[in-house]
């Protein structure tokens, strides 16, 4: 392009400047990315390095960068250790949360795209708003609802029943809390995904005599998959790291993995062990996320280009 512009400068001058500007844009983009990159480098990567360093330090010490041992990891992989129980609980609950939320959120996501029309905006706001209320407050509201003599129990007694079910401080209610907390994280990516399905395509299939189930399985689901995948991944990853649900609603009837990590850092003052656990969790989540993200085209999802 540049040589062409040089050959006949009068005719191609605008082309030339455009090419120049495009080159300029290249560096401009990188420069715009710099502040974010710097923040995440210092605030995200560096702490991960610190955790990694601590994971190889002598157990129950603060000798970071001065000692090297694999003892912490050996401890984790010891069958006598209960950490794996926590990890399995967390993974199992995360999987169940994803499955339940997919079923709960799909009709709503579909509705936001195709049914609610001008009400969509308002309904979205109703689903976004809970994100701005601390999860403690919302989960504690459930405690007030379910506790003995609470709203449910009290109302049932007042109506003449023998009282509400005793579900508080059980593993089941922990799962419920996770489903409750992470609904928006499933709903919004799913809604974005379903927005990628062209209406005309569905109409055309229907006109050609395709059944509902067929349209859903062959058109809607595959085309909305990127969004659904992001939603599932996001809820899974967040649910693995969830602690508040198990502590507030579950009353520590089960110990989840991030609670174990917390215990190592606080009560038992064993930072190297806590770090080793964090490293394992981080590797698991990181590998999963990077694998899924590598399959997605974010420009298409967010920009609908």
């Amino acid at each position, binding site marked *: 392009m540049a040589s062409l512009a040089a050959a006949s400068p009068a005719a191609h001058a605008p082309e030339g400047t455009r090419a120049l500007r495009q080159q300029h844009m290249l560096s401009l983009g990188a420069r715009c990315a710099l502040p974010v990159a710097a923040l995440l480098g210092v605030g995200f990567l560096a702490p991960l390095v610190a955790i990694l360093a601590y994971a190889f330090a002598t157990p129950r010490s603060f000798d970071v960068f001065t000692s090297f041992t694999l003892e912490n990891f050996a401890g984790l992989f010891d069958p006598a250790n209960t950490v794996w129980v926590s990890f399995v609980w967390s993974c199992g609950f995360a999987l169940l949360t994803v499955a339940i939320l997919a079923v709960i959120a799909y009709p709503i996501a579909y509705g936001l795209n195709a049914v609610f029309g001008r009400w969509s905006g308002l309904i979205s706001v109703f689903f976004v708003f809970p994100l701005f209320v601390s999860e403690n407050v919302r989960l504690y509201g459930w405690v007030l609802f379910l506790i003995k003599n609470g709203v449910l129990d*009290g109302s049932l007694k007042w109506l003449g029943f023998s009282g509400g079910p005793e579900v508080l401080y059980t593993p089941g209610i922990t799962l419920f809390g996770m489903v409750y907390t992470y609904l928006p994280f499933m709903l919004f990516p799913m809604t974005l995904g379903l927005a990628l399905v062209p209406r005309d395509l569905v109409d055309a299939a229907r006109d050609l005599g395709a059944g509902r189930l067929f349209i859903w399985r062959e058109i809607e689901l595959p085309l909305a998959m990127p969004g659904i995948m992001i939603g599932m991944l996001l809820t899974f990853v967040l649910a693995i790291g969830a602690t508040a649900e198990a502590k*507030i609603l579950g009353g520590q009837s089960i110990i989840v993995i991030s609670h174990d990590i917390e215990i190592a850092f606080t009560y038992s003052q064993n930072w190297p062990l806590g770090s080793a656990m964090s490293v394992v969790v981080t590797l698991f989540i990181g590998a999963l996320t990077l694998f899924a993200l590598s399959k997605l085209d974010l420009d298409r999802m967010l920009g609908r280009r």
Partner: protein
Amino acid sequence: MKHTRTNALIWIWTLLVIVVIYLPILCGALASFNKSRYFGFPIKIYATEWWQKTLDSIEIGMIVKTSILVALLVTVFSVVIATCGALAFARYDWKGRRLFQKLIILPIFFPQPVLGLALLLGFNAVGIQTSWMTAVFAHMVWIVPVVTLVIAIQVYGFDPALEEAAFDLGCSRIQVLREVTLPLLWPGIWSGMLFAFLLSWSNFPLSLYTTGADSTIPEWLYAKMVAGYTPMVPALGTMATLAAAVLLLVGGLAGMLLRRRAAA
């Protein structure tokens, strides 16, 4: 005919889920108006004394101030950084863009309690004393990526030809930024600001590990939930919720006006 029935079912389901979402928030509000110290339902005597006590408490006043300060600083810093980031994310074609798009999302996909602990470790390793200032930084690590995505959606929506035209008419880069790019992005930046403030306002897991001796509203609430319940807990929780709702309402209306002006 069958179609309308499905739509009705979708409506009913959605409204039902919304009711369930707001049920615990309502329970909290209810508990805050209970006169007696311990919660029991049906409430025998309603009173506003716990609201009054919460408003009068000096300790809570300080905590609210810390929360507001942290959220304001997070908002200002995040929006500046995220606006640049959103332009890099969605506007410019540059070599590292695909990678950048993916890396920026990673912190959102990271469990916040673990991120908070990692930051605490990091601060500790370099010898920084944790306080509300470190919490501002910690919040930003998580909020900047979210706000970048929010603004990026607006960036995707604008036509690069408008910038090109301004350049062709002889504007300098600063002029283009001030006269074309920023006015067009305002609605997105505004939403980003709302998100930044409200997400910082309600954040618990990051604050827990990074505020040191200082405390934010969600932290104080958690401490009292675990030990030492008083009806001030639901009262302050409800106040924080109401404050967020008012801000979202006012901010949302202002945003709609902005959008209309940008469209005009």
